[in-house]
Structure formats: structure tokens, C-alpha cells
């Protein structure tokens, strides 16, 4: 299956921003989390990784971000502008939305006026205008995740890593945030690597779905997603979507067995 090029379709360049070659990860306690992983993510690609719990999906992201170092293989990063969205929103509870979104630019020693402007722009992009002065405890789970997203956006990331960011949200919020994310993706054309355990979410969001096996995590299958961006939420109910989801599900079961 190939992508059908359209105006909205972000251009896929050949130069990968992230390149994993034969990456393996063994923790000091002997647990093998990953083995023989080959994976590339290029600009304009939105790659999702689905796999059973504990298969090392998160380890994959942690290696990509530099939080962990692979015990084998090579990892090449063609950019330093990496956005990382954690499983929970990880907002600082004593900071307002505005101050939370400014945090990363602040840590990178950007001048006050620059980071304030960047934060405002990001807040608008995730649809949180008007909530700048609110504290995290006054926000819903979905709004907190939007704030977290805005915070990463201030880095203008070329590579965007998502570690099951919507896992803790209810389905309605989850789908709405997925749509927002796709809109931002179409606008910013970053390279996305998204971890999830939801097959529907994987197929709906991405240009490519990677299926991992249980521990030690290996890539067992890969599927190109043929749907154009912007995606109509209703494609979830088309036979093509169902057929592809079925294939991914099947691959997941095979890999798990």
C-alpha cells in the first residue's frame, strides 16, 4: 500500500530524522526489553507503535529521546529539536498554564518576551486561549494534556515523541485530542513517533503502524495507512479502516502468542 499524495499530505522526505539500526536494550537486572529493532521516522511521517503492555514500547521512546542508552545497535538522530509528551501531563502544579507552557523555553534560557510569545501561540494552537492564568488543578484531564502538548510545541520540535499521551483520558476526549493532534501535525509537518496500545488510535492517527511483540520487544509487522490528511473522524467506521484495524489486531495477536 502506498500513500496517495494530496495537497494536505505532508511531504515525506527520504532523509530520516530518527534511525534505529538493530537496537537492543538489556537492563542491568537482565531484562531484555528490546531486540533487533530497525526503525526510521522521517519528516512528515506519523509512525505509531502498538504492542502489548510491557513490550518495551516506552523504552523505544526513551532511547530515542536520550533518556536511556541502547545496549546494542546504533541510534541516529538528525535533529536536536525533540518534543516529548509523557503518559501523564507532568505539569508543575504551582505554575499557571502560561508559566507551564513557557517552562521548556525558560530552561533553554530564552528571553522572557520570546518565550511568552511562543507560549501564547502554542496555547492558541491547542485551543486553550483564555485559560492562561488557570492552575493545573483547575483543568480537566484533557485540558491538562493540551497544556502538556502546547509546552512541547514551544520547542518547534522536528521529531515529536508521544508516550501513550491519551491513555488516561476518556474516549471522547481522546478522540478529540487525536483530531487536534492531526491538525497540528498537518500544519507543522514534524516527524511523529507515537506509542499506544489502542489499535484504532494507531490506525486513525498514523501514516504507518508498527506492531511489536511481547517481551523482548521485536517489530513483528508494519502497515502503511492509506488514508489522506485531514482525516474525517468518520473514516473509523469505513470497511477499509475496519479491514486494516483487523490486520493490525491479528498481527498483535500473532506477535503475542
Amino acid at each position, binding site marked *: 500500500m502506498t500513500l496517495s499524495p494530496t495537497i494536505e499530505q505532508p511531504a515525506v522526505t527520504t532523509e530520516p530524522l530518527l534511525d534505529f539500526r538493530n537496537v537492543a536494550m538489556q537492563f542491568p537486572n537482565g531484562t531484555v526489553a528490546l531486540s533487533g529493532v530497525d526503525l526510521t521516522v522521517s519528516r512528515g511521517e506519523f509512525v505509531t507503535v502498538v504492542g502489548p503492555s510491557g513490550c518495551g514500547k516506552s523504552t523505544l521512546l526513551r532511547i530515542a529521546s536520550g533518556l536511556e542508552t541502547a545496549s546494542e545497535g546504533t541510534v541516529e538522530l538528525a535533529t536536536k529539536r525533540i518534543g516529548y509528551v509523557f503518559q501523564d501531563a507532568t505539569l*508543575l502544579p504551582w505554575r499557571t498554564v502560561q508559566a507551564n507552557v513557557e517552562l521548556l523555553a525558560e530552561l533553554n534560557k530564552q528571553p522572557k518576551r520570546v518565550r511568552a510569545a511562543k507560549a501564547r501561540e502554542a496555547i492558541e494552537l491547542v485551543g486553550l486561549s483564555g485559560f492562561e492564568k488557570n492552575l493545573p488543578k483547575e483543568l480537566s484531564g484533557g485540558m491538562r494534556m493540551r497544556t502538556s502538548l502546547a509546552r512541547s510545541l514551544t520547542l518547534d520540535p522536528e521529531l515529536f515523541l508521544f508516550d501513550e499521551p491519551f491513555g488516561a483520558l476518556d474516549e471522547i476526549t481522546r478522540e478529540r485530542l487525536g483530531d487536534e493532534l492531526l491538525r497540528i501535525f498537518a500544519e507543522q509537518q514534524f516527524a511523529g513517533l507515537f506509542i499506544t496500545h489502542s489499535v484504532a488510535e494507531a490506525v486513525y492517527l498514523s501514516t504507518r503502524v508498527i506492531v511489536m511483540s511481547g517481551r523482548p520487544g521485536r517489530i513483528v509487522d508494519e502497515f502503511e495507512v492509506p488514508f489522506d490528511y485531514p482525516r474525517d473522524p468518520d473514516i473509523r467506521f469505513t470497511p477499509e479502516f475496519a479491514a486494516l484495524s483487523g490486520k493490525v489486531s491479528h498481527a498483535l495477536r500473532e506477535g503475542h502468542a
Partner: protein
Amino acid sequence: MSTAVKSAVTSTQPVVVKQRKNGSLLSRFGPPLIVLVVIMAAWYGLAGYLVSVDKAFLLPLPHVIIVDSFFPSNGAKSIGPALLRSLGLSTQVALFGLAISIVVGIVWAIIMSQARWVERSLFPYAVILQCIPILALVPLIGITIGYSFEARILVCVLISLFPMVSNTLFGLQSVDRSQRELFQLQSASRWTVLTKLQFPNALPAIFAGMRISAGLSVIGAIVGDTFFRRGQPGLGNLISVYASRVQTAELYAAVLTSALLGVVIFLVFGLIGKLAVGRWYTSS
């Protein structure tokens, strides 16, 4: 008809809100007030019985404490001025000691939070400090340092330091792993992590520690006095004097005053904590 219904609705709404507010006020102050009434009733009952068996000196009636202490009829002086002077001195000692404990405790905890081996080296001494019976230490301080203002403050520091150290350390270390990694991903320095993440995160625990230390510092001030029995007379000196003269009414007045000082300092620091972190921090 419709206007009547409308006005009925709008007029009931504020009433509902008001009732809820009253309810919360009542539920907040009602129970402790009831306990106070019960205690006072028991006091009067017991003291009344002691009067009847001619042992009133064991537990004077509450109003007798007030009259004998502040409005004595038999030509004696009111203890009011002396009590006030002692209260001032003890408050000063307690607050100075507390201030030193806060600063030393926070710095000590920050140093320990920097490396596991530093914590392992220093924490045992914080625990030992906590375990030294202060009553055993006070005479020693008197002999070696003397009975000065500084010696009294040292007693306060020794007794109130541990909660500051342990609470601050706990707060600094209880940062979420992912929040720490968020800073790590931006290659934030140790100092940045401390000032922008660990320290603000520790503030609720620090204020909780302050509240405990504040009460302990007042105890330290009074314990120091009672043992030193010299130098400027704090509340503790007054207590020892009244005790040795079996002036029970005055003794109770002094004891209650020191309890009140502890309560006031505890409440003040609770309020400071609430003002500082109550906006964002919700204790679970």
C-alpha cells in the same frame, strides 16, 4: 403566576448557599466548642469537689485562676505584667530558635538531597539529634554555654530541627520521575532542577514541618527556662517559681499562657503555609 414562581426561585437560591456556608462554619467550629464545654464542665465538677474536701489548691476553679492571677483581692500584685514580660521573652526565644531551625534544616536537607552518599552520611545524625532526650541535654548546655539568651535558643533549635530536616528532605525527593525527566531532557543543571522543580515541590512539606517545629520550639523555650532558672525569666522560670511556692492559680495561668503561645504560633505558621502554597496545593 410565572413572575411569582421566578421570584421564588431567585429568592431561595442565595438562602441555599448561605445555609451551606453556615453549615460548614458550624461543622468546623461546633465540635471543638462542644469539647471545650465538656472540658470546662468536668473542670468545674472536679474543682468543685476538691473545694468541698478542702483541697482546692490541687485544681483551682477556672474563674479563681483568673481572679487570683490578675485581680488579686488580698493586696497582692497582679501577675499580669510579669506574665506578659515572660511571654514576650519566651516568644522571642522560640521564634529565634525556630528561624534558625528553618534555615539550618532546609540547608541540611538540600545538601543531603544532592547525593545518596551525602544523605547516608548525614541523615543518621539528624535521627540521633531527634533521639537525644532534650531534658538530659539542657543541664549540660547550661554548664558549658551558660544561661544566656543564646543557650535558650540552642535548646529550641535542638528540639525543633529534626522535623524541618526530614520534611524538607521528603519534599525534595518526592518529585515525580517524569517531571524530573522533563527537566533532564532539556539538560537542566542541578541548580535549575533544585530551584525550579525540587524546592517548589517541597514547599508544602516544608510548611508542614514548620508547623510542627513551631510548636516544638515553644516547648524548647519553656523547657530551657525551667532548667536554667537563671538569666532573664521566661515563662518556664515563672512556672518553676509558682510551682515551688505552690501558687497553683498563678501556676495554671502561666501554664495556660504557654499553651496558648504554642497554639498561636502553630496557627500562624499554618496560615503562612496556606497563603504560600494553598493556591495550588490540595492535600489529599
